[in-house]
C-alpha cells in the first residue's frame, strides 16, 4: 500500500474533476431542465434516455459518427503505416522528417477545419477537382479529412516506433528463407508491431469520436447528418436543455466505453503497468 502515498494526490484530483461531473451529469439527466425556464424544471426519471434512444435523429448521428470514425481510423492507419515504412527506410532524412511529421498536429483543429472547409468550398480543391457546391455533407467529409491529416503524423510516429522493434536479424533470415513480402509482413513485421497498431487504433478512434470543431463549423440548420458530439453540444450549449443534454452526454460516455471495450480486447492492447 506504500505506493498509494505516491498515487493518491493525482488520483484524488483526477476523480474530483472527472467522476464528480459525471455523477452530476447522471443526476441532471434524470430531470427535464430548460436553463432559461426554471419554472418548468421537473424530475422525469429515465424519460430523457427513452426519448433520445427512440429518436431517429440520434441513431442517424450514431451511425454517422461510427462511419466517420471507421473511415478516419482506416485512413490514418494506412497512411501512417505507409509513411512509417517510408521513414524507416529513409534514415538520412530523419532530422527533417521528425519535425515535419508532427507539424499538422501543432495546428489548431479549428484552424485546420476552417482552411479545409474553405479548400473545398471556394479554394484550390474546388478549383482542381471541379467541386461544385458541396453542401453540408461534403463539407463534413472535408473537415474530417482535415482531422485525418492532423492525426496521420502522430499515427506514423507511433507506428514507426513499432516498426523499429522489428528484428532485423529475423527479417534477414526470413528473406534468406525465401519468404514472400506478404509472409514477411504477416509473420515478422505484424507480431512485432501489433502493440503499436493497437495503441494507434484505440487512440485515433477515440480521438475521432471527440472531433467537435470541424462538424460544428460546417453545421447548418436543416442538416440531416449530425455527429453525436455536435448533438450533445447543440442540446447543452445552444438549446440549453440541460437534462436532455446531460442524458446525451452520459450516452456519449457509454458510446466511448463501448468503443474502447470493443477495440481493446480485439487488438489485445498490452498492459503497461
Amino acid at each position, binding site marked *: 500500500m506504500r*505506493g498509494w502515498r505516491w498515487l493518491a494526490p493525482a488520483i484524488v484530483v483526477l476523480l474530483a*474533476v472527472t467522476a464528480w461531473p459525471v455523477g452530476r451529469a447522471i443526476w441532471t439527466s434524470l430531470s427535464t431542465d430548460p436553463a432559461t425556464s426554471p419554472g418548468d424544471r421537473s424530475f422525469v426519471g429515465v424519460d430523457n434516455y427513452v426519448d433520445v434512444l427512440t429518436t431517429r435523429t440520434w441513431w442517424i448521428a450514431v451511425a454517422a459518427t461510427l462511419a466517420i470514425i471507421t473511415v478516419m481510423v482506416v485512413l490514418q492507419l494506412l497512411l501512417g503505416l505507409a509513411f512509417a515504412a517510408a521513414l524507416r527506410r529513409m534514415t538520412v532524412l530523419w532530422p527533417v522528417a521528425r519535425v515535419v511529421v508532427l507539424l499538422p498536429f501543432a495546428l*489548431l483543429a479549428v484552424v485546420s477545419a476552417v482552411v479545409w472547409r474553405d479548400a473545398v468550398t471556394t479554394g484550390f480543391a474546388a478549383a482542381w477537382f471541379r467541386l461544385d457546391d458541396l453542401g453540408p455533407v461534403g463539407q463534413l467529409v472535408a473537415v474530417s479529412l482535415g482531422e485525418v491529416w492532423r492525426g496521420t503524423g502522430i499515427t506514423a510516429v507511433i507506428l514507426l516506433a513499432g516498426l523499429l522493434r522489428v528484428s532485423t536479424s529475423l527479417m534477414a533470415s526470413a528473406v534468406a528463407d525465401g519468404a514472400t513480402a506478404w509472409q514477411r509482413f504477416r509473420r515478422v513485421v505484424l507480431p512485432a508491431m501489433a502493440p503499436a497498431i493497437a495503441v494507434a487504433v484505440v487512440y485515433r478512434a477515440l480521438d475521432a469520436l471527440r472531433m467537435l470543431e470541424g462538424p460544428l463549423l460546417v453545421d447548418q440548420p436543416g442538416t440531416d447528418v449530425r455527429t453525436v458530439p455536435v448533438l450533445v453540444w447543440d442540446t447543452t450549449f445552444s438549446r440549453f436543455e440541460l437534462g436532455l443534454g446531460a442524458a446525451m452526454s452520459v450516452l456519449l460516455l457509454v458510446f466511448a466505453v463501448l468503443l474502447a471495450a470493443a477495440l481493446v480486447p480485439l487488438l489485445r492492447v498490452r498492459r503497461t503497468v
Partner: protein
Amino acid sequence: MTPSVKSRLWASGLSFALGFGVGNYGILMIARPDQWLWIIASVVLMATGAAGVLYADTPRPVSFWGILGFEVFAVVTLVPLLWTFTVATAPEGADPQTLWPQGVSWRAFDGAIGSDILRDAAVTSFLVSGLATLIAMPLAVAAAYGFVRVPARGKRIAYGLVIGTILMPVLAIAGPISEQLVAFGAYGSRLALVPAALVVTLPLATWLSVTVLRDVPWPLLDAIRADGATRRQVVRHFAAPALLPGLTVVTLLVFVVGCSDFVLGSALSPDARTLPLPATLMLASGQVDDSSAAIAAAGLLWMLPAVVLLLLFPRRINHLLGRSYR
C-alpha cells in the same frame, strides 16, 4: 540489406506511372500558377522512377519505395500547410482559389498581432494552461513514480483511470462542469477554467511522465544510494541528468496541449473576455464574414511555440510520443 531488383523496378514503375498521371492531370485540368506545382510534382516522381530503373541492379543501399513514400508524405503534409499560409495571406476581400499564394498580404498577421481580443484570448489560454500544467506536474510525477517504482494494489485500476481520462470525450463532462461553476458563482472567470483544464493536463502529464520514468536507469539510483550519497549528490548525479530533460519536455508538451483545448474553454466561458484562443477563433468563424484569413493567420502564429518546441527537442518528442504505448 539491399532491396531486390524486382522490388525496385516495381517502385520505379509505380512512381513513373504516378508522375505521368499527375503531369497529365496538371497540364489538362489545372490553371496556373498551380499547374507549375503539379508539373514539379510530376517531374520529381518521374525522375524517381527513372533513377529507380538506373540503380535497380546496383548494390547501393537505397530504397525507392522509401523515396516514393517520403515524397507522398511530404506532399500530403505540406500542401495543407501551404494552403493555410495562402489563406492567411490572401489580399483583402479575395477568396484564394489557387494553392500557390497570389499577391501575398500580411494584413491578417498584423491584425492578429494587433487585435486586443486575440491578445486577451492568448493570455487566457497561457494563464489557464500554464496554471493547470504547474498544478498537474508535481502530482503527475509523483503518481508516475508510484506507477513505475512502487508496488501497490489496484495500481492497474488507477492507471486505467488515467488512460480512460485521456481518451474520454471531454465534451461529455463540459455541461456538468459549467453547471457546477454557475452554481458556485464562478462561471465567467478565467481562474474557474483552471480546475477544468486539469481534466486535460493531469492525465496527459501522468501518462507522459510514466513513459519518461520507465526509461530511467533506476538501478543507478539504488547504487548511488547504496554508496551513501547525500540528497544533493542524488539530485546532481541522478535526478538532474536522468529526469530533468524528459520532464521538461513533458511539461512543455502538456502546456501546448492544454493551450489547444477547445471544448472546455468554449463551454465554460460566457464571452470573449474569458474565452481561450481556440474557442475565440471558433466564435470568430461564425461572426465575422471573411474571417478565414484572420483565423488562418492566428492559427499559424499559434503554431510557433509548438514548432519551436519541436525544433528544440525533435528526438525527445518523437521518442516520447512513439514509445508511450510500451
